[in-house]
């Protein structure tokens, strides 16, 4: 079935388009809407976005490959991003990463076999005062302790 935005997201897109003097400006917001719905940005979505906004597919492809947050291949149901940059590293981020890898049984950049969790490291997420931290889907978890990390990951694997 060809990709199309859900009616609710389609309405959101129409609202987004009123904010800018060009249609191209909606490229990133529309890609976010598509990825929210589909989990990743497929070639079909690139074509869809290009048609919607009257821009060349090559333009959309260029945008997708530039930005870290657009997934260019399928990912797990839940996204875990552990901040690894210096202020977090000074407060134990490397230990957080090691604990996540051990608990999930995967390395950074991989997805668990059951497709539940993709583990990645992030560059500074502006939580240096509450380090170490990780982002799970759209939520920040700050001032992490080994016990909290364990609880968060257990919940993800069960959901």
């Amino acid at each position: 079935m060809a990709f199309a935005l859900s009616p609710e997201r389609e309405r959101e897109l129409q609202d987004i388009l009123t904010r800018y003097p060009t249609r191209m400006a909606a490229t990133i917001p529309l890609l976010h809407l598509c990825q929210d719905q589909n989990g990743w940005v497929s070639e079909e979505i690139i074509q869809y976005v290009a048609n919607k906004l009257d821009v060349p597919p090559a333009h959309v492809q260029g945008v997708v490959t530039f930005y870290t947050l657009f997934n260019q291949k399928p990912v797990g149901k839940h996204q875990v991003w552990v901040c690894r940059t210096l202020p977090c590293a000074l407060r134990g981020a490397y230990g957080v990463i090691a604990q996540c890898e051990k608990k999930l049984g995967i390395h950074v950049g991989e997805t668990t076999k059951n497709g539940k969790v993709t583990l990645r490291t992030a560059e500074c997420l502006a939580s240096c005062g509450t380090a170490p931290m990780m982002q799970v889907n759209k939520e920040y978890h700050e001032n992490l302790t080994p016990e909290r990390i364990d609880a968060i990951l257990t919940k993800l694997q069960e959901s």
Partner: protein
Amino acid sequence: MLVRTDYLTKVYSLGHSLDVYERQAQGYQAARKVLLTMTREQVVEEAKKANIRGRGGAGFPMGIKWSFMRPHPTKPAYLVINADEGEPGTHKDRTLMELNPHSIIEGCIIGCYAIGANVAYIYVRDELHLSKERLWGAIKEAQAKGYLGKTPFGKNYPVEVYVHTGAGAYICGEETSLLNSLEGRRGEPRLKPPFPAQAGAFGCPTTVNNLETIATVPAAFMLGCEAYSKLSALHHIADGGVRLYGINGHVKKPCVVELACGPTINELIYDIGGGILGDKPLMAVIPGGSSTPVLRADEVVDAPDEKSPMHAWHGKNVMDVPLGVDTMRGVGTMLGTCCVTVMAEGTDPVLAMLNLMQFYHHESCGQCTPCREGSAWLDRTVQKLYDGNGTTEDIALLADIANNIMGNTICAFGEGTAMPALGFLKKFKREFEEYATGTRTKAQARLTVD
């Protein structure tokens, strides 16, 4: 000198609604006064007196930036707010978006009026979902009250504010890269000139202000801009007002705090941060985000010349110099974002540099060869030393690579990579040599304090 203030942070513990902002913090009175009683020119002249140095890191005077905007016969103007907070060590703007979003919306109304814009875009990094939600909530509340829209406060001067999101690219905090990203393009920096005031967003005259810069504008106009500037211990060198200061890394109580401009790093570490973890001695600090060169605990200000602006602090420890745009330049680093990263004695400086070089390698946009190749080469070479496979020639090579990035790129990311690299190499020469000669190995290297 440490002076606590609460112009931006008073509502942090009270709530983020419009009601709280109006009742507890005189919210929207400054915007009302500006729109109903002042001309655009008067607003810009008044703003200059506040001596607000840009809070994003470069420290450019905000009022002067506003004065660059000239009405264009056919093109609209735009105000763009940079909330792509991502400089490692920086965690202040997020607190404003989450806990005092209306100060930002009110600042946008005043800013739009001052530069002749009817639309403001707040560019928020995508990861900050709560920040975006709070900003949209504040926009909706302000619209419902008639503070935004066709006639704010009854004045025939339409203002709309929109939140725009990125998609995870540090470089989009660079203003021209941010503008490309806002237009729906790859976030690659543009050549300047033309500067944004001539051709910015969508080819139109544009002012890009940091989020904290615009959030502090209502307080300045409420108080009177000159009085606001005088709150600062550095008013006499045109560095005015109050700021958010962050303290992170090896301190007991990391936090964000609002202070009059001009506290010292020692005051931030010991009076605000509660001292160093394990009561260890200080090794070094990164004063304002990872791009600002590191300062060692034993550095002393060397300014014997009485004419030097730094002479007042001659012979003092750098940690006892007030944090200001020009004072930090005077000690060979930068004020940056005013968020201090503290490293206790025992931290491995080579591993710290490796961590940062991995960051710059990952975040270089790839447009300019010296930065794209240089950042990767720096990363690989520090890794080689850290792994015990380096030689003293590699230390010289690192400096050579960094020096060849400096000044050879379109945007300041190149300097932002090279300067901290050169800082670590110069100030921790002994540790790099120990790695090169094998007297120090990664088996003992640590970044944490136990």
